[in-house]
Structure formats: structure tokens, C-alpha cells
């Protein structure tokens, strides 16, 4: 037992002390925080105010109609042909010409600018003109401005899940989908990544011939298990670092923006904070935040760590068996596909599970040990009955025990086999060799 600990310690320390481990551990939270913070930052940034000259031949607009925080309008009364060559020289960023018959000829509006006009400027100008034109047309059709205002409602639905016992929880299916997709993808990538790390570790020990020295001190299954657990703990450490750092960083930037927003509220009568809320809600992270608020975060995090670790143990024991049978990573390719197929299949099934998390296929995909790590994590944000989660976890542990038993039998023979082209038939025979 003590010797397994030594093996775990070596596998863990040699990896955790590498620079690349720390770079990836630190970089990922920074990137995630950036995805979260940049839309807010953009929304809160003081925008550059642009000066726009407007030639209104229709005389529909009053100065109060042209309020925009990014644009300052000045009415001019010069001819369009003359002024379009002068506006830049007079310090305007753009020149808008509205024809007298704009109500019947909405395409007659021209926007001149010296530089290529920004899309947002074009949209702002168009929106202001369009609102007024629609309002006028409604008025002419006999609809009062008040009625028009009252019809401008935004629909923002709230989805609510009602459990069998009648408890209501807010849910956002878009957010759940994003969260599910992200967790599924992370599991997919990490299962492959850490699994192949184990395989390469086994190949390294075999090809540099230290294996025989080691297994004269420890039993092969101890070495295999020690290596798998050691590498797995590296993965867990990385996830914990990611989670802690991401939460820490987002909390920090959240507080930072909140204090800024408060200052902005005082200055702008609440405009900025509305913008910020809106930016947060519109960004994908906002949707995820909504789900996170309505779901059991500790349950999701703990389940994620569980499914990563045990799912990883299952797959990496198979990777270890493959590593033991070959002498180089290129030679391993003929066998790795058989382990990669269930991982890729899980990921494909997860796309389906995400669409319909309570379907029969999704249920079975989240129960069968090979596909359950990814598929159960994809289902979890949508809500899963406790018994299903428990059964799936127990099955996964049993699956791991079965796989590691098979793998250990191949491993103990494979690590001492040199200069032999290994076939599937050969591998099957090793299962039945006597110690």
C-alpha cells in the first residue's frame, strides 16, 4: 500500500512541478473571466461622443427627438450638395440629410461621413429617424403617440421547472444548454488528454526499460494504479485550481465593476447600471449565471469532479493496458481507436442529450459507464432525479473496477513483452495467462 503511495507521489510531483501545468492552470481562469468581464467593460466604457450635422428638410424633428448618449446632433440649413464637402472641415463626424418627403420616400435619407461610417453610428441614426417616421405615419393613420408608445413592449419570458413534488425553480434552458455543453466538452477533452498522458507514461517506462527494475520492487498492478491515480490527481488539482481561481477572479472583477457602476449610477441617473445589467444578461455568461443561481452549484461541481475522476480512472486503465502492449506511441494508434470510440460516441450522444435531456436515449447514455461521465454531466444542469444520479455513479465505479481488472491482466504481461508485434488475439490470450 505504502508503495502505491510512493508511485502516486512521483507521478503527481513530476507533473505538478512542470511549468506547463501552472501556465495552463492560471491561463484558463483568466480567459474565462475575460469572457465574462469584457462585455460588461465594453458596456461601461465611456463612449466617444460623435458630432453629427443634420439637414432636416421635412421639419419633423425637434432637438428633443434626437437624444442619444453617443451622438450630438446639430441642425444645419445649408444645401446638401454644398455642405457634404464642408461638414468634415467644420468638425462634424457625419452629416445626415433627410429629404422633405421622407414619410413617403424612406430611402432618401443620406448619411455622409469622412471616414468609413461605423455600424453602430449608422444604426443609431437610422433608429432615431425610423422611430420618428413610424410615429408620424401612425399618427397620420389615426393612432395616437400614446398608443404607439404603449405597444412597444418587450417580451422576456421566464422558464420555470415544476418538479413532481410541485417545487418551482427558475430555469433557463439556454443557460442550462451552455453549461451542459461546456461541461461535456471539458470532460471530453480531459478524458482524452489525461488518458493519453497515462498511456504515454506507460510507454515511456517500457521503452526506457526502467519497468523491470520497478516491478521487482512493486507489483505491476500497484504501479499501474499508482500511475493512474497520480495523473488523475493532477487533473483534479487542475480543475480545483480552475474553479477556485475563476470564482475568485470573477468575484473580484464583479465587485470592481459593481463599485464602478455605483459611481456611474450617481452620475447618470442609473443609465449605466441598466446597461451593465443588460450586457450581463445578453452575454452567454449571463444566461449561465441565471442557471447557476437556480441550480445546486455544489452538487454540480462535486458531480463534475466525481465524473471526471472515476470516468478518467475507467478510461485511463484501458489506455494503460494499451500502453503496456506497445513500444512507441505510433504503434499504439492501432489500439487507441477502440478506447476513443466510446469517448467520441459519448460526445456525439451528448449533443442529443442536450436537446432532449429526459429522453430514453439520454437516460441510458447517462447510465452506461462508458458514456455516463459526459452524458450525466450534460443532463445535470436540467435537473436529474437523485436516484438516477446515484445509480449512474455506482455503475461507473463498477465499470471502473471491471476495466481496471481486465487492464491489469493485460498490463502485467505487456510490460515485459518486447520485439513482438502485438495483435488483438494476442491481447485476448494475455487475459488468461497465469501469474
Amino acid at each position, binding site marked *: 500500500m505504502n508503495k502505491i503511495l510512493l*508511485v502516486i507521489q512521483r507521478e503527481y510531483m513530476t507533473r505538478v512541478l512542470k511549468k506547463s501545468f501552472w501556465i495552463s492552470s492560471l491561463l484558463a481562469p483568466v480567459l474565462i473571466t475575460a469572457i465574462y468581464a469584457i462585455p460588461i467593460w465594453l458596456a461601461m466604457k465611456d463612449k466617444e461622443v460623435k458630432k453629427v450635422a443634420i439637414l432636416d428638410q421635412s421639419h419633423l424633428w425637434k432637438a428633443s427627438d434626437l437624444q442619444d448618449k453617443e451622438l450630438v446632433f446639430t441642425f444645419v440649413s445649408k444645401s446638401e450638395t454644398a455642405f457634404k464637402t464642408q461638414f468634415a472641415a467644420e468638425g462634424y463626424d457625419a452629416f445626415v440629410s433627410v429629404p422633405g418627403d421622407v414619410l413617403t420616400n424612406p430611402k432618401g435619407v443620406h448619411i455622409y461621413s469622412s471616414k468609413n461610417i461605423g455600424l453602430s453610428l449608422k444604426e443609431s441614426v437610422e433608429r432615431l429617424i425610423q422611430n420618428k417616421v413610424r410615429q408620424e405615419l401612425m399618427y397620420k393613420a389615426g393612432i395616437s403617440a400614446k398608443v404607439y408608445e404603449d405597444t412597444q413592449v418587450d417580451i422576456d419570458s421566464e422558464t420555470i421547472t415544476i418538479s413532481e413534488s410541485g417545487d418551482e425553480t427558475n430555469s433557463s434552458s439556454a443557460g442550462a444548454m451552455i453549461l451542459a455543453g461546456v461541461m461535456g466538452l471539458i470532460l471530453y477533452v480531459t478524458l482524452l488528454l489525461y488518458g493519453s498522458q497515462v498511456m504515454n507514461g506507460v510507454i515511456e517506462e517500457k521503452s*526506457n*526499460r526502467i519497468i*523491470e*527494475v520497478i516491478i521487482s*520492487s512493486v507489483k505491476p498492478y500497484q504501479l499501474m494504479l499508482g500511475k493512474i491515480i497520480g495523473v488523475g490527481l493532477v487533473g483534479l488539482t487542475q480543475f480545483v485550481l480552475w474553479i477556485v481561481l475563476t470564482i475568485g477572479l470573477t468575484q473580484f472583477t464583479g465587485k470592481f465593476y459593481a463599485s464602478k457602476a455605483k459611481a456611474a449610477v450617481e452620475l447618470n441617473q442609473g443609465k449605466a447600471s441598466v446597461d451593465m445589467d443588460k450586457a450581463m444578461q445578453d452575454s452567454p455568461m449571463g444566461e449561465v449565471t441565471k442557471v447557476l443561481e437556480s441550480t445546486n452549484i455544489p452538487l454540480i461541481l462535486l458531480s463534475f469532479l466525481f465524473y471526471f475522476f472515476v470516468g478518467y480512472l475507467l478510461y485511463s486503465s484501458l489506455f494503460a493496458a494499451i500502453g503496456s502492449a506497445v513500444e512507441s506511441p505510433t504503434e499504439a494508434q492501432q489500439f487507441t481507436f477502440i478506447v476513443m470510440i466510446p469517448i467520441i460516441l459519448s460526445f456525439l450522444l451528448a449533443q442529443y442529450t442536450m436537446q432532449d435531456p429526459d429522453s430514453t436515449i439520454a437516460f441510458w447514455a447517462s447510465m452506461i459507464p462508458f458514456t455516463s461521465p459526459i452524458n450525466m454531466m450534460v443532463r445535470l444542469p436540467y435537473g436529474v432525479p437523485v436516484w438516477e444520479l446515484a445509480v449512474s455513479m455506482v455503475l461507473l465505479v463498477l465499470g471502473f473496477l471491471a476495466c481496471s481488472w481486465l487492464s491489469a491482466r493485460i498490463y502485467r504481461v505487456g510490460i515485459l513483452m518486447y520485439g513482438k508485434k502485438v495483435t488483438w488475439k494476442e491481447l485476448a490470450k494475455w487475459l488468461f495467462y497465469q501469474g
Partner: protein
Amino acid sequence: MLLSIRQVEKHYAEHVALRGVSLEIPKGVIFGLLGPNGAGKTSLIRIITQITGPDAGEIYFDGEPLRLEHADQIGYLPEERGLYKKMKVGEQLLYLAQLKGMKREEALIKLKDWFIRLDIKEWWNKPVNDLSKGMQQKTQFIATVVHEPKLLILDEPFSGFDPINANMLKDEILALKERGTTVLFSTHRMESVEELCDEIALINHAEVVLSGNKSEVQNRFKKNQFAIRFTGELGTIADIDVVSSQQGNAILRFAEGLSTNDAISRIIKQVNLLEFKELIPSFNEIFIQVVNETNA
């Protein structure tokens, strides 16, 4: 006896690796395990080191049936040996010593002694990748002996060693023997057998075909031949065959029952004898003879 191997059998799917192998290895000797490639030496060593198990038969280590815990009292240097390339030398040796059941602090003290003794202190923090092949061999040797095993198993220890390292290794093996370590080493290099071994066993085709004390084995293979140097004319002598003779050197075979003194008195009647030496068969000759006989 430190190691008793009794009727050990090992079968693989396609061939028999060991058939009824029995060996007794006394404490404190250097025991040579000889045999051609594929005879079963490595299979036997892997059973003693418990890397694999025997299909039948028993093994006693220091009087007890061989158990997993005995692995800590055995040091094993395999024929194909390696190290973790990216690990530092000191760290790696600490790891290997701890795997043999040593405490970290204890291993550190013992390793420092070895590093001072072999004058390699500056290697401690070097990654193995930066070491030359000879340096790696020294490192591997330290890893094999640092836990002061009762039984040291060396599989072809001299293969790949340059003459200087081979000499160092020889001296260290003899020093370990002085301190009571039993050494089992397998080799095809017969000159190292003659130099180092006290006892030998020859394995061919999965069976022990010859074993015993080194000089006793040599005596068994003596052909009653003697070399002489002389001046004069060598004619026919009763009960003595001239195997070869040229320019004052000859090899003679004495008939059964003829004593050396009688033979000499007969020879000196004919020639002026300058030198007289009994021909003891070399292990190389014995090896080839026995292997050929058992192959036939």
C-alpha cells in the same frame, strides 16, 4: 542456504522456459548462472525477483518460502536497464530506494555515502538525460545496491560497460561479497566467471545441466592433460600420449592410474624438462562442451 530453488517449472504458451530446475545458493557466495541465450536464465531470475510466478515448484529465501516482502531484500539489475530520463539523478535514486522499503532519511544518508565513494557528488541535481552511458550505469548500480540487499541479482552486468566501469563493478561486487552479500549473476562472459564466481550452474534448454563449486566442476572436466616445455628429443613413452608437440612445447595425456611423479620420472629420462603444468579446462571449453553435448 540463502536461496533454495526446488523443482521449479515455467511454461509459456509456445515453449517450456524452465523444467524441474533445482539450485542451492549458499550465503555469501558469488553464484554464476550460465547458459546460452534463451536457455531460461532470465525466466528463472524473474521468478526469483517475483516479477512472474512459477507454474510449479518452491523457492525458499533465507529459510522462508519466498514472499512479496522479500523483494526489499533483493537487489536486481536487469540486462535491459533504464532510468527515468527527465528525473534528476538524486531524486530518482531516492525514489527507487524508497520503493525498496527504505525510509527517505535513511536512503538519503546511504546515497550520499555512495555519491562520495564513487566521486559523483556533482551529479545529484543533473537530469539523467545529461549523463553519459557509463554514468547512467553507475547510477543504475547504486539503485541496485543502496538498500543493502541480502541477495544481489545481476543479469549480464558487464554488457555495455567500458573496461574502467567494468573494473569498478567487479571491485564493488567483491566488496559486497566481503560484507556478506550473496551475488547471483548471469552471464555469457566466461572470463568473469573464472575471476569472480565461487559456484556455478549451467542451464540449457530449460534444465540445469551442470552445477557445483567452480574448481570441483573444473576438476570434473579435466582430461588428464599436461603441458611441458623441454629441450631434447621426445620419443614414445609408456602410458603417455603426445597430443601435440612442436619446438620444445608439448601437450601430453597420461593414461588412467599413472601418477604425476611417475610420469615426470619417465619424461625426464628422455628430455630436459623446463616446465610442467597441469591443463585445467577453461569455463569457455566446459561451456561449449556441455552445451554441445546437451544439444545433441
